[in-house]
């Protein structure tokens, strides 16, 4: 597609469950980012991929959060043992490394009951 695609758009789960959120970046973009946006806040950086490797994962809040990008394109953000505080919109963005301009998807809204 022409833009960054994220699925699911909305996800409701119960506390303690495992969740996967998918991001399909713009074709040819080598850099991919995950951000988390809580209600009334700006997005917070989670992790950045350059190709297949995580170049910077300093924003992941704890070891329940993990992300992969095995073939350098689609990425999956994985959250184990979800907690109510994980409820937020998870935004994915991609960029061509040289320009530095990030293109965002519409996000996945996660609600943990």
């Amino acid at each position, binding site marked *: 597609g022409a833009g960054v695609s994220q699925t699911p758009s909305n996800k409701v789960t119960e506390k303690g469950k495992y969740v996967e959120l998918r991001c399909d970046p713009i074709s040819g973009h080598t850099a991919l980012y995950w951000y988390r946006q809580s209600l009334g806040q*700006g997005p917070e*950086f989670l992790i*950045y991929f350059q190709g297949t490797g995580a170049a*910077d994962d300093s924003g992941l809040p704890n070891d329940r959060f993990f992300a992969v990008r095995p073939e350098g394109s689609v990425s999956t953000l994985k959250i184990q043992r979800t907690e109510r505080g994980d409820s937020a919109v998870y935004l994915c963005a991609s960029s061509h490394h040289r320009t*530095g*301009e990030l293109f965002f998807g519409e*996000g996945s809204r996660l609600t943990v009951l």
Partner: protein
Amino acid sequence: AQTVTQSQPEMSVQEAETVTLSCTYDTSENNYYLFWYKQPPSRQMILVIRQEAYKQQNATENRFSVNFQKAAKSFSLKISDSQLGDTAMYFCAFMLLNSGYALNFGKGTSLLVTP
């Protein structure tokens, strides 16, 4: 660490008028970009305008322009001839070059354009 501060949680402007959104940032680095992003209710962040710190000239994009004061670490956004479609959350963001290009966002300003 770089911080971005937006001191105006909410603003309102009448259609066709001009409004200025404030942003300050804190960094000890010299090589960075600054951005304004717009987030309508659809949730998708849309780039409004970008400023490279090494450029003295203020960036402009049609009705949108910035006032970049590097010494003061200030980066305000001016929207001229406001339109109803400009209603959205506006986020100021900072990107440090050669560090992964991760964006640091402010908390945002909710702009309402009224008829």
